């Protein structure tokens, strides 16, 4: 019975994926992609990976979908390359089919029992003071990956800001991004933002606090925080940020640099890079994670907002107010 349910879910994912790939209208494709992310979220739950499911729905489907929605409009005006001919399509289909068959064969031929690091994690997790094995892997065992992952986000932000059109004076990327939506928010939207904000903040704090022991964590919490900010921006309850504000920079850098500083401090207090001091691992980890939550939330929001747009003050005869 549950196998039937899994098969139906997978089939749904495949149908939606085909819809995304073969669709003709950018906006419809992007909406189908968001649906794809939600179906995948359910599949992750079926795989007993609740942490991944939370990340998928918040980042993989939500934040990614929001960013893609902003591109759907631009795609309609963009230069269309020639649509591929039948031969290209046939060849592409053939290549894809071969890859599928090879992958399927590899999947079906996996060794039994499956080699796994689950036991190794279970053995060493108590030493970290954490209860959630995935947080343990992310923050302790493979901390270098996670540190660099926050840097990847930072780098993407620098890359996107560098795309701002040149402006005279000040820093090249300064100013405010273009508003998320051209439409005036409706009353319902404003109400939703006001209602959800406290709930979202509560969920953020819960996710990062509980993430030490139950499924959840800094990335998921950060994503919810970012979503709350975007919701406020959409409802025009918060002003668009000025990108050159030092306060904003502090928020963006807090996570990666608190992590890096903790890593370097490890040499002094624990004998190695990214080694946590014995006995107080957990408090240190909580502090680092809190900084990461804030940075991820702000950075995700800024990535969705994009580079500084042409500024009202730049246009002759226009008044910023």
């Amino acid at each position, binding site marked *: 019975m549950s196998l039937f349910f899994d098969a139906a879910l997978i089939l749904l994912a495949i149908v939606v994926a085909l819809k995304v790939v073969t669709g003709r209208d950018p906006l419809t494709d992007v909406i189908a992609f968001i649906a794809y992310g939600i179906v995948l979220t359910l599949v992750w739950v079926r795989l007993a990976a609740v942490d991944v499911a939370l990340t998928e729905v918040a980042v993989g489907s939500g934040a990614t979908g929001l960013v893609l929605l902003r591109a759907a409009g631009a795609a309609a005006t963009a230069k269309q390359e020639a649509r591929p001919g039948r031969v290209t399509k046939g060849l592409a289909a053939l290549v894809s089919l071969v890859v599928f068959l090879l992958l399927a064969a590899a999947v079906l031929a996996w060794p039994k029992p499956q080699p796994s690091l689950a036991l190794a994690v279970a053995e060493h997790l108590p030493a970290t003071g954490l209860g959630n094995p995935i947080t343990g892997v992310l923050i302790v065992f493979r901390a270098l990956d996670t540190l660099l992952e926050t840097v990847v986000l930072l780098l993407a932000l620098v890359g996107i800001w560098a795309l701002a059109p040149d402006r005279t004076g000040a820093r090249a990327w300064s100013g405010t991004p273009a508003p998320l939506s051209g*439409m005036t928010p*409706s009353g*319902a*939207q404003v*109400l*939703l933002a006001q*209602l*959800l904000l406290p*709930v979202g903040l509560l969920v953020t704090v819960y996710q990062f606090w509980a993430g030490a022991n139950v499924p959840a964590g800094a990335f998921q919490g950060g994503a919810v925080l970012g979503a709350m900010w975007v919701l406020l921006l959409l409802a025009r309850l918060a002003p668009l940020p000025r990108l050159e504000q030092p306060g904003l920079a502090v928020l963006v850098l807090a996570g990666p640099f608190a992590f890096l500083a903790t890593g370097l401090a490890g040499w002094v207090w624990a004998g190695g890079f990214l080694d946590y001091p014995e006995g107080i691992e957990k408090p240190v980890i909580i502090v680092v994670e809190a900084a990461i939550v804030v940075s991820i939330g702000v950075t995700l929001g800024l990535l969705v907002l994009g580079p500084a747009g042409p500024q009202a003050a730049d246009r002759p005869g226009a008044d910023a107010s």
Partner: protein
Amino acid sequence: MSLAADIFTVLCLLAGLVFFAAGSIGLIRLPDPLSRLHGLTKADNVGLFFVVLGLLPQAGSVLAAVKMLLIWLLLQVAAGTVAQILAEYAQALGRSGGGRR
């Protein structure tokens, strides 16, 4: 006692499913965006209510039951707002009556 709870759950879930099915059929069959939204949100909200209601006796603790109710409440708010925004968008595009999309 537990048998009665199970029967209650099954009945509620079935009722919920009927409403979900009705909403989905409405989404496909109704002619214009506004009536589709109307059908979908109404039917889904009630459907979800029955599902949550049915699952309440199965929740191991009071806390879990309260969480489920909160989720239902949250979805009510979200679905209501989204329907409102979609409707305004449809109206702004002048597609409130007729037309495929």
